[in-house]
């Protein structure tokens, strides 16, 4: 696979190092700044090209026409979007990935045909959310094109699902509980008979729009039951 990385900052450099280690991949990094290009060349060699990754002539010169994947990771949303659009529409690159700085731009990028967007802000927010005690369902990764995503959630002590076996749960379809990490840190691949315990961490594949159902089932104390109880008392 031929992969072009636009932007040789920290993200681009790290990415290039990882990709370079993979067999059967050809990688080129395009960096705009002269000084930075020299630094990167010392480390990565000839794969680093100096130039403007949004410019047709430069992209032409590195053979973008035969590129399988273009990844734009500069710190500038404009550069990243335009690099992907030029790659897609002028060079017919089959797959483009862009880093997005302003989360508000994610929708625009998707609308304009960027296949995948990576938002640092969103990732940071998700991580912080995951450490909050009242966090519920944390989306980890959208699965490309399927409408599914991988989520992380904790079994709340009084939730409807707590104490039940997985086959008893009415999960939103299609869903798959892929991994359970017990409170003592033991990871487990669950079966239908696995009983959910309070404090279990669950990694599941679910439809992107199923968050509210999952939250109600697994990650929220069953307040409805409590309310019903209160009503009974009142009678």
């Amino acid at each position, binding site marked *: 696979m031929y992969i072009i990385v636009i932007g040789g900052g920290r993200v681009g450099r790290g990415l290039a190092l990882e990709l370079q280690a993979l067999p059967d991949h050809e990688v080129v990094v395009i960096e705009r700044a002269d000084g930075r290009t020299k630094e990167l060349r010392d480390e990565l060699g000839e794969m680093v090209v100096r130039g403007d990754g949004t*410019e*047709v002539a430069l992209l032409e010169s590195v053979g973008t026409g035969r590129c399988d994947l273009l990844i734009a990771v500069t710190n500038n949303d*404009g550069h990243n*979007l335009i690099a992907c659009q*030029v790659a897609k*529409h002028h060079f017919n690159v089959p797959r483009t990935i862009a880093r997005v700085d302003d989360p*508000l731009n994610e929708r625009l990028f998707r609308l304009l045909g960027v296949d995948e967007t990576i938002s640092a802000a969103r990732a940071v927010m998700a991580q912080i959310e995951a450490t909050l005690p009242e966090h519920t369902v944390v989306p980890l990764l959208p699965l490309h094109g399927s409408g599914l995503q991988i989520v992380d959630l904790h079994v709340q002590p009084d939730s409807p699902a707590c104490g039940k076996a997985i086959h008893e749960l009415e999960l939103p379809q299609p869903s798959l509980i892929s991994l359970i990490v017990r409170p003592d840190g033991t990871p487990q691949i669950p079966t239908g008979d696995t009983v959910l315990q309070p404090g279990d961490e669950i990694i599941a594949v679910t439809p992107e729009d199923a968050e509210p159902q999952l939250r109600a089932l697994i990650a929220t104390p069953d307040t409805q039951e409590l309310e019903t109880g209160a009503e009974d008392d009142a009678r």
Partner: protein
Amino acid sequence: MNIVIMGCGRVGSATASRVAGAGHSVTVLDTDPYSFRRLPTGFEGQQLVGDGTRHRFLEDAGIREAQAFLALTQGDNRNILASQIAQHIYRVPAVVTRVYDPYRAEIFGKLGLRTFSPTNAGTEMAWAALFGASASDGVSTAGT
């Protein structure tokens, strides 16, 4: 017509003062307040310091009520990004984008922006000034 102009350089300021003079309601956006010095005294439009590639500054400039958006900064990619936000997110009917690079001007013209390239225009004018002939005779301009 409500018009938002991003970039108050020579072209941005002259365009702003011209459309304001023609009775349109204009807001000029620029990241550098010093650039507003280029606007003529008695300029009737609004001036706003802000980055036109950010949604909130576009909204402050009245992009939701705008019938036209012109991106006239020095940066091709900035202009293209802001124009596409105006066109696709805020549904501004007329979006005009200055793109120096003739290739990008052509590509994004095909993708629905009204782009123009000062590079192409300048080349033709230089040719015409030199030979005094019809500018299209034998001019080779990239991207056309």
